């Protein structure tokens, strides 16, 4: 019975491999029907399985001490639900968008495989399973980056690959050390290392912890290993950049939560230089990301820099080791998924309908695409953190949490930088709305006339904008569950 957890992992992977190897679709319609069916069935089954099964499942033993083990908990459910939602709506969005790309069948093949791999990542119950799916996530996301196969895309793909592998091996380095000292590698809130063992080898464990944090945060684009993100995400086709920036990068954050909170244990790290450096690096990234986004003229690149910045909000929240900040981080994960996917969908819709890539070309765009631009504006406000949107709630929790910790300097510096970065966020997101709605004198009114994207592109956008507002209006449902989860992890 518990093995139904395997289905949402194996089924889309097999379906994807079939699509890549055996099946040959001449027309789009049956291909899309196939992809849609697989995604739908898998989403339903995945949701059913993860809320039904709470015990762990050992799939097989890689070696005697390293079982491949699946287990679902609140954090896993959160990530998996977000993934399912984005995968369904992203699929719907791409059905229209991919019309103007080649090699659709390959795109959807990897899209399906990645869905299964991500289920595996979210359901991982121990470190080695997590690592396995993490590596496969890196590899199977690569074809999405490479999809257009322009020189730029290939270079971005290689950059992505090398950064990711470098990060993964820094993390693996830590896995080896922890495997030696820990009794088990199964995720346990509070850590798996004996306190006496930890005290004996304190320096070693600090180095290992720092390496693992640096290694896994490569995926989350933390300075100094962020350069791949702003190359790879804009190079992918629109829907792919949305899922890369919305979901794949969260894989790094999930891995960090697992490693720091459930393998090493926050009590050991609290007050150490590891925590300090993590806070410094994440705050630096928050600020630098916003600053670079502010200077960037190409819309998709600007959004990618924004991802770098926003992910470090989450990382900063995680680095405080405090329940409220952790709740804020988890909330910001949700908020950022909805907002960033919606933003990239807007960028994709604009490219698809008009071909414009740079922000200054888009004067008056809202005259032709009002629904799209309204959605863009709402989610932008969310990212800046203006009430009543989800971003406001999450940032509130983050700032409150930071002030609450009482860590010298950082407890006030953190909120200050978060505020500064919010200003910059307004500076790089809102001009598009303003120029879009109020183009001023002398613009070509006919250019964008009737460019509103078709329904299958508008619906996902509207849903995400609605969710952004919804969470902001009714945050209690989420904060209760999430703070319970955060409390459990401490």
């Amino acid at each position, binding site marked *: 019975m518990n093995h139904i957890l395997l289905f949402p992992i194996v089924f889309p992977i097999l379906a994807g491999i079939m699509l890549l*190897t055996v099946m040959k679709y001449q027309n789009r319609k049956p291909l899309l029907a196939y992809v849609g069916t697989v995604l739908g069935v898998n989403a339903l089954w995945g949701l059913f399985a993860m809320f039904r099964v709470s015990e762990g499942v050992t799939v*097989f*033993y*890689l*070696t*005697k001490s*390293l079982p491949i083990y699946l287990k679902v908990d609140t954090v896993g459910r959160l990530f998996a639900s977000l993934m399912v939602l984005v995968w369904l709506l992203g699929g719907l969005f791409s059905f229209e968008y991919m019309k103007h790309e080649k*090699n659709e069948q390959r795109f959807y093949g990897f899209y399906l495989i990645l869905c299964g791999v991500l289920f595996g990542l979210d359901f991982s119950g121990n470190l*080695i399973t997590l*690592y*396995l799916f993490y*590596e*496969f996530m890196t*590899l199977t996301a*690569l074809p999405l980056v*490479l999809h257009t*196969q322009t020189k730029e895309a*290939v270079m971005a*793909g*290689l950059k992505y*690959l*090398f950064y990711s*592998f*470098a990060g993964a*091996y*820094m993390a*693996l*380095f830590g896995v*080896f*050390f922890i*495997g*030696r000292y820990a009794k088990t590698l199964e995720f346990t809130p509070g850590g798996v290392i004996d306190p006496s063992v930890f005290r004996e080898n304190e320096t070693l464990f600090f180095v290992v912890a720092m390496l693992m944090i640096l290694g896994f945060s490569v995926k989350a684009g933390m300075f100094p290993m962020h350069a791949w993100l702003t190359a790879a995400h804009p190079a992918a086709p629109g829907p792919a950049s949305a899922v890369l920036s919305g979901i794949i990068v969260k894989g790094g954050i999930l891995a960090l939560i697992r490693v720091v909170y459930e393998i090493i244990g926050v009590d050991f790290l609290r007050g150490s230089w590891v925590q300090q450096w993590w806070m410094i690096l994440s705050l630096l990234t928050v600020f630098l990301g916003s600053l670079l986004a502010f200077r960037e003229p190409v819309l998709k690149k600007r959004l990618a820099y924004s991802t770098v910045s926003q992910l470090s909000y989450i990382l900063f929240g995680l680095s405080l080791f405090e329940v409220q900040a952790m709740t804020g981080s988890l909330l910001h994960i949700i908020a950022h998924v909805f907002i960033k996917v919606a933003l990239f969908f807007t960028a994709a819709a604009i490219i698809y309908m008009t071909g414009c890539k740079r922000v200054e070309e888009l004067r008056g765009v809202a005259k032709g695409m009002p629904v799209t631009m309204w959605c863009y504006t709402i989610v932008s406000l969310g990212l800046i953190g203006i009430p009543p949107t989800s971003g406001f709630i999450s940032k509130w929790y983050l700032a409150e949490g930071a002030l609450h910790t009482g860590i010298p300097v950082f407890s006030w510096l953190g909120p200050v930088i978060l505020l500064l970065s919010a200003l910059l966020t307004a500076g790089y997101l809102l001009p598009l709305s303003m120029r879009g709605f109020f183009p001023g004198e002398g613009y070509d009114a006919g250019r964008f006339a009737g460019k509103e994207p078709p329904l299958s592109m508008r619906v996902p956008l509207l849903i995400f904008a609605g969710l952004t507002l919804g969470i902001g209006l009714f945050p209690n449902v989420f904060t209760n569950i999430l703070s319970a989860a955060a409390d459990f992890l401490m």
Partner: protein
Amino acid sequence: MEMILNFPCLCILLTMFSAIISSALNRRWARYLNTFVVTLVGILSAAVLMFTLTSGKSYVYQMGHFPAPFGNEIRFGSLEAGMALFFSVIMLLSLNGGREKIRMEIDPGKEKLYYIMINLLLSSLLALVYTNDIFTAYVFVEINTISACGMIVITEHGRTIEAATRYMIMSLLGSGLFLIGICILYDMTGHLLMEYLYTSISNIMAAGTYRIPMMVAIALIVVGLAIKSALFPFHAWLPDAYGYSTVSSAAMLSSLVSKGYIFLLIKLIYRVIGFEVFFGSRIINVLFVFGLAGMIMGSVSAIRENDIRRMISYSSVAQIGYIYMGFGLGTGAGMVASAFHILSHGATKSLLFVAAVGLTDASGGHKEFDELTGAAYRNRLAGAAFLVGALSMVGIPLFSGFISKLLFAQAAVQSQGKALAALVVLAMSTVLNAIYFMKTVIRIYTPTDKKYEVTAFGYKVSYAITLGCFILLNLLLGLFSQPITNWITQGLTILQ
């Protein structure tokens, strides 16, 4: 069960006699005989493996009339039998995968000679694996060298003649050092059988006399074998020898010939020099440093290479470095990791060579990366096989390479003082591996409009089956590694 005890000796004799008989046959029958003998050796070795695994003991088999300490002996436990099985499986697959190329590249009149060389190679490998006499080991090391040279030179290109000459010079240097080492040992101990050598050496080391000559002898033996197995910086002959010879030769040279010497070294460490003596000496530090240097330099050279075959060859330099790094760690776990890597690298590297030839043949015979663009679409199975090999080399979980890395890292973490250097270099080398292998994978999966003349080769059923077997072997090593490491651990214990 008494019957099974004869099998190892029978295998060696069988292969040697088949080499002699082949010279009287035509090329077709030489090929059939060779396939038959290699398969038979595989089956017999599997039987010996089952037998030794169930009994958990090792056996000594007296060769000829004179008993020890004067006569010659064969000795086998589960590890030896398993290696013999592995070598014959890889040999069969490599030959089968490159069969068409052998037919195309080798002069029909000489094809028979090729199979004679292969039979001799297998007999010498089996002898290296099974022998209990250090001088017999030397004799078969030379036979091994000669047959390997023959395998390189058989295509008669200018490049292969040059490569074979280089290989010959380096190899003879290695076996020369090995021979001098044996002479010094014989001089000091008066024995050639391994048990007696072991006792004498431990007595000498305990007494403290002749410590330095003893160390010199051990160092000569180790360095001799290291040169022969292409440990960095003695690898200059390797890229040409692997890069230009026919594909079966390249696969066998990298997976069998060099591994045979390494396995001999493992045997010598356990059975002659003694685990404690060897790990107490400074020789392992030298091996450790050269191993680490090889891991980096091999990969760096591979990155700079523009020829896919030579790139794979340079990657071998790095992988041999891993094995010596495992020796250098100076722990039992390091030896287990190295022994596992012999299997894992053997299975992966021969797969890569055989897959690469499918790709180059689908690209008009060009080996440069520019021409290989999109090759994986022209020969889908070879592309998939290359992908599997590359992922295994990079060390992605579920493939055999990951288990090797895991074992090396676990061994490194347990060792004193060397953990950090080993792990850092392991991580660096892995990232470097990722650079050149993933670059190649992306290259072969990038579609192109350029048309190439489609050769029949690469669509042959036997080639496809070979690649399928290789992929399975890789996954087998990656997914079910626990029984294999148990077997290695047990085998190493009874080796002593």
